[in-house]
């Protein structure tokens, strides 16, 4: 699959054109962030069709409620990933979804998703190996639970049977490691 001409703008340009409701803005937004957002959504909602619906709902919501985003309060992606995560969690907690019985046990999920998608290795993921080396497994599991699975740190402490303080520490240390790694 050739990745045609993907549109890419600087964050400031993107925000400005989104604010003006320009057509190019939504295209650029999709090209720049759909994969990152879908990474989060598809780890929470396992069913592909439903995950795709959630991604669509996410972009529609970003487009229509963009006026509520303020760049002073943080980065655009942080705002968007919270929308995506919340919509995904709402979806798996909804009655419809529960009835479909399509949700899976959390422990299996992370590996399950990665197995499902291991054909789409991308050049920008070349560094992942290093990352795995930098991030201790116990830090990664907590970051993944909270960031990708939408767990609160309290729920994560419960799930992993680890004291809350330890969870917080590991979360912070893990993110510190990520920062070092990306710098």
């Amino acid at each position, binding site marked *: 699959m050739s990745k045609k001409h993907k549109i890419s703008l600087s964050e400031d340009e993107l925000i400005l054109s989104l604010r003006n409701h320009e*057509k190019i803005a939504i295209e650029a937004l999709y090209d720049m962030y*759909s994969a*990152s957002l879908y990474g989060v959504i598809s780890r929470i909602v396992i069913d592909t069709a439903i995950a795709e619906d959630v991604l669509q709902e996410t972009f529609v919501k970003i487009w229509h409620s963009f006026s509520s985003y303020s760049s002073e309060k943080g980065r655009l992606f942080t705002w968007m990933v919270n929308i995506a995560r919340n919509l995904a969690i709402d979806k798996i907690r909804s009655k419809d979804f529960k009835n479909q019985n399509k949700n899976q046990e959390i422990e299996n999920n992370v590996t399950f998703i990665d197995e499902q998608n291991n054909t789409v290795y991308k050049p920008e993921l070349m560094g992942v190996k290093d990352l795995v080396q930098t991030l201790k497994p116990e830090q990664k599991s907590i970051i993944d639970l909270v960031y990708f699975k939408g767990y609160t740190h309290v729920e994560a402490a419960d799930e992993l049977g680890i004291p809350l303080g330890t969870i917080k520490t590991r979360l912070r240390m893990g993110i510190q490691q990520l920062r070092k790694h990306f710098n």
Partner: protein
Amino acid sequence: MEDIKAYIETGILELYVLGDVTPNEKIEVEEMALKHPAIKAELDEIERSMELYAKENAVEPSEHLRGRILGSILTNFGDDNNFPEKPHPAQNNIIALPAPKQNNFYKYAFAASLALLVSSSVALVSVYSRLQQSNGQLVALQLQNQHFTNRVNLMDRELSIFRDPSFKLLKLQGTAKTPASVVTLAFSPTKKKVMIDMSNVKLPQNDSNHQYQLWALVGGKPVDLGVFDAKADSTDMKEMKSIALADAFAVTLEPKGGSVNPTMDQMVVLGKF
């Protein structure tokens, strides 16, 4: 500066970026970031690395999804362009309704009806009592009227008798026993009528066991002409039994109902032609 460092080290900023804070903590972090550039910088660092981490873990959605999602948004986008003016905020569409006019009409109408009802009832009662009064008066007047009519009739009769030339008036004078007694009677031989003028009867009142009896003396024999009572309030002319011829009239006091023959010693008046 120490405070800020300590605040950063609580790990709240990480949780904020992960969307795992309460609304109050969210506001607090945003306020701190606004006040302290160091915190803002720290936040930005965390956000940036999480964004990159997400990119590392990105999953490319299927190709067809791009067209579908952009299409759904741009369909609406087209609609938006048909209305270059953004729809006015809902607030502008809200026109304050004029305060509903206080319509007291029915309230007052009801009160007026009640007042009318009460006053009508009162008026009705008073009119009714006056009607009763008037009816009473009317009855009294009718009685009076009848009384006068009767009286006039009586007097007419008396008058007609007195005017009638065939009637002869005879005063029966009291006997030695009752010198004050007087009975006036009218006698018409042609009409064979004998009437006692009851208003001019002056006799001692008889008790309930006795009555006065009028007698005609014809050729020396007494003929019964009927009984009567002597009452103070008698007014009419009392017609007695008829007789064509009489020499004299007399009244005796007899047992109630009268006797066949007069009790001579009870004779109270006597008159002769």
